């Protein structure tokens, strides 16, 4: 197809503003799917995506509209997956920015709009959900126009739910979004903007052809990695895979590489043809680095091999997942994993538990610290248990946090951010009632119970987004928890000196409540180095006997003891102290706080 008949675009939006519904409607209006094939969130194929109403993996789907080929690249909306969004945006010339007419601009609306602007995309602003009784399309249109520097009259007003205005969106895509550049005659260059793994057919590369074209059975080469292969199939998504003979400049599609090893083709690489290779690769992507780390341990140590296999398999479709073996004295063999953020961590954990049927213990999440030793050596530390007790200085990751709240909650958010060592940057009124606040905060403070606090203190009205901006020195200490004198490695944490006492106290208190009494006194201590900052004692049990046991009771009592014996196998042993699984879970939850 000639370039001027092709449009490549994404839809970006804050969560729940209707991105997936609009995508569904586009597939319907363009007859890509019949009504019979249609279901909600059709592009979100993972159970988890459908349940949570979020998109985790990008998808690319081709539709036809009035003689044009439109390629929709669906992207995740959450901050943890920003890297996926920005990769997808590099494959597009335009983006539809969807904003809920009742909610107005939210934090991720801003983040996504900025990303689109940075990538020089044409933004088509759309106000959605105009059918809602509480919708205020005019006010929202004014906000959005202001944000993207457009005329409020050009902001489209639609209801993705009812389909009203969806055709106008398609027309606007054709009219406003530029056709792809690129040279159809030049040596072939295609950007790999994502990949997936097909159990039977290997690595599937999602590509945007920039120059030239791929021909059937032409050998290809990944320019950065040098991997060579003969593709088994070329094609596009509609939304199922549709094989084609060619992929031409400007088009979006897939290459079935036949590669069985995902590490041989990296997202961001450029594919070219062996026969007539391009001289230079396209600008690639920065490697994404995990920001949040946690230890994952099977609750039953026998499941370690299953966990290892499951992580290997997840990694095939989630290149951003990082893991390495970790051994904990308390929890046994497991893995230290790196995630792009807390949502990513939650999702990996849920996928491991659901898709692989594993029972996991997850340690409190922490960030990566940069520790400068006395010998001026720089260490990156992902695990509190490996945090040195002596060092020259330590730096921790900082973020630029954007929060949008109704004005009555401004004080509340400021208070929360101040408690969390935040540095105020600026504040602006987006409308009469809604305020945008920017703060610099240590990432570690977000990882510890921040979302829950923000949500409850603002009654759910705040929206929040952040970017990791760099490292800053911090007065950080390692707090260890000791049970009967033995350090419980899985419970060590890194905190700001100011919070060390409170956090140590809370952990020690919780452990006292959760650990059953043993046959001896068990002191529980929180310590910074050799200095004890909190202490509790679990008093020894004074009695534990079967009151009577005569001829008729023997079998029953024996079975009772055997059962108790079995129960002990499920206990985690720390030095001489036995901790039931449930106690560990309760304490780890306090330490990290579960959130969704």
């Amino acid at each position, binding site marked *: 197809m000639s370039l001027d008949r092709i449009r490549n675009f994404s839809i970006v939006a804050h969560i729940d503003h209707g991105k997936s519904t609009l995508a569904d409607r586009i597939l319907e209006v363009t007859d890509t799917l019949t009504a019979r094939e249609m279901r909600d969130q059709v592009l979100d194929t993972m159970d988890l995506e459908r349940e949570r109403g979020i998109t985790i993996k990008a998808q690319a789907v081709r539709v036809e509209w009035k003689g044009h080929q439109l390629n929709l690249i669906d992207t995740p909306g959450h901050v943890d997956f920003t890297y996926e969004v920005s990769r997808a945006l590099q494959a597009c010339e335009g983006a539809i920015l969807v904003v809920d007419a009742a909610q107005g601009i939210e934090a991720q609306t801003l983040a996504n709009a900025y990303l689109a602007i940075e990538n020089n995309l044409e933004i088509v602003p759309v106000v959605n959900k105009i059918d809602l009784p509480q919708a205020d399309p005019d006010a929202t249109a004014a906000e959005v126009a202001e944000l993207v520097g457009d005329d409020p009259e050009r902001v489209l007003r639609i209801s993705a739910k009812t389909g009203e205005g969806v055709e106008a969106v398609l027309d606007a895509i054709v009219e406003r979004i530029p056709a792809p550049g690129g040279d159809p005659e030049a040596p072939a260059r295609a950007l790999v903007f994502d990949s997936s793994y097909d159990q039977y057919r290997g690595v599937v590369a999602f590509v945007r052809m920039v120059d030239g074209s791929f021909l059937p059975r032409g050998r290809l080469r990944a320019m950065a990695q040098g991997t060579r292969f003969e593709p088994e199939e070329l094609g596009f998504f509609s939304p199922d895979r549709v094989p084609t003979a060619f992929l031409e400049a400007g088009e979006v599609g897939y290459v079935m590489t036949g590669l069985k090893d995902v590490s041989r083709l990296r997202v961001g690489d450029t594919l070219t043809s062996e026969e007539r290779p391009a001289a230079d690769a396209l600008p690639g992507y920065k490697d994404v680095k995990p920001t949040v780390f946690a230890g994952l341990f099977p609750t039953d140590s026998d499941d370690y091999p299953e966990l290892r296999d499951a992580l290997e398999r997840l990694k095939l479709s989630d290149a951003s997942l990082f893991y390495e073996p970790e051994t904990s004295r308390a929890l046994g063999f497991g893995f230290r994993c790196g995630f792009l953020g807390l949502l990513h961590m939650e999702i990996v954990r849920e996928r491991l538990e659901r898709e692989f049927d594993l029972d996991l213990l997850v340690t409190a999440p922490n960030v990566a610290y940069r520790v400068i030793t006395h010998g001026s050596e720089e260490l990156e530390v992902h695990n509190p248990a490996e945090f040195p007790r002596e060092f020259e200085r330590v730096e921790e990751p900082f973020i630029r946090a954007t929060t949008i709240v109704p004005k009555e909650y401004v004080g509340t958010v400021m208070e929360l951010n101040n408690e969390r060592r935040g540095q105020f940057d600026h504040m602006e009124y987006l409308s009469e009632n809604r305020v945008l606040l920017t703060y610099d905060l240590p990432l570690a403070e977000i990882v510890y119970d921040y979302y829950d606090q923000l949500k409850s203190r603002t009654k759910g009205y705040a929206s929040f987004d952040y970017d990791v901006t760099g490292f800053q020195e911090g007065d950080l200490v390692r707090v260890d928890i000791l049970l009967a004198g033995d350090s419980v490695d899985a419970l060590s944490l890194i905190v700001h000196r100011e919070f060390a006492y409170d956090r140590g106290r809370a952990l020690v208190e919780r452990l006292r409540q959760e650990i059953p009494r043993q*046959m*001896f006194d068990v002191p529980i201590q929180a310590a910074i180095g050799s200095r004890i900052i909190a202490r509790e004692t679990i008093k020894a*049990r*004074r*009695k*534990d*006997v*079967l*009151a*009577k*046991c*005569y*001829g*008729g009771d*023997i*079998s029953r*009592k*024996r079975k009772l*003891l*055997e059962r*108790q*014996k*079995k129960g*002990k*196998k499920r206990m985690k042993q720390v030095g*001489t102290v036995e901790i039931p699984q449930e106690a560990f879970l309760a304490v780890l939850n306090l330490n990290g706080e579960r959130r969704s």
Partner: protein
Amino acid sequence: MTALAEGVRHLYVHLPFCAHRCGYCDFVTLVGRPEQHARYVDALLGELELERCVLSEPLETVFLGGGTPTFTAPEALQRLLGALPGASEVTIEANPETVTAELANVLAENEITRVSLGVQSFQPRLLDVLERRAQPDDVRRAIYHLRDAQIDNISLDLIYGIPGQEPSDLERDLDEALALEPDHLSCYELEPKPGTRFTHAYGDELARQAEAMEGYFERVVERLVTAGYRWYETANFCRPGRQSRHNLGYWLGRDYLGLGIGAVSTVEGLRWRNAPSLGGYLSAHEDARPPARELELIDDDTHRRERLMLGLRLDEPVPFSDVAGALNEKALERLERLGLAERRRGGLVLTRRGRFLGGAVTVELLEESLEIATL
């Protein structure tokens, strides 16, 4: 295990009838039914004839338990006592209010050597909670009658940890019991069994009191040991030489034959429990069939595990040779370091504190069973 040639030297006879079923009780008991007592005794004697071949007479001990054995209709009871094989220790359980001078004489005439009285408490208020009928005076009277009849080996059962029992109540119960100078005392912590009427009524209250009552067991041991009693088994105390030899048989892993509904026997690696149904037991006898039974194989490994579990209740060491393979050596070393167990005379015995924690300590000391190890 008892060598084949030795045969069984301990006999248990279950007499299930009671005037009233106490709320906390979970034994096989039946209220009233005087018309069936005679038939039940017939059936008991029938079962005895059936199994007599395993007994090696003269027996060492016979134990009549219940129920309330002394509630059994007098003629039926007398007929039973007359027909049972003799033994050097013959014990009967009795509720104090049933022990009249007449009954005491009947017991003595039938060579009962030992009586175990279900006293439980001397506080009327607590007896009420337990639904016990005997009053403190009944206990004293019963003891006089028994001693008058020359039965001087008397044991008292006490219960502690009763809902509403204050430390001073416990002290008073111990004072009263000691004042009667029994040869033997069994002191049990009240165990509210799930599903009983009692647990339903008092479970929450007991849970609240648990901490306050934690020291009662220690106090009982302290008082009785100070008064010269030997704490020879977890819940049992005696004057020198006055152990319950019948119960010692269980704790030393000897074989025993049990007769009657719900009764358990262990003979040469086989354990069986008679079904608890009275009707079934009676009709089996009348049809000249053995009663319905549940069987369990006690192999050597299981026997040694039981030997360890039971032996650790005693104040005498369990010989290592009796528990080979059942004992986890590493656990023993750990418990020795904690001062809960010790090696003595080629065997293993718990320390005073170890005995208070006997359940947990036993769980530690038990080697993983084969079944668990191969999982």
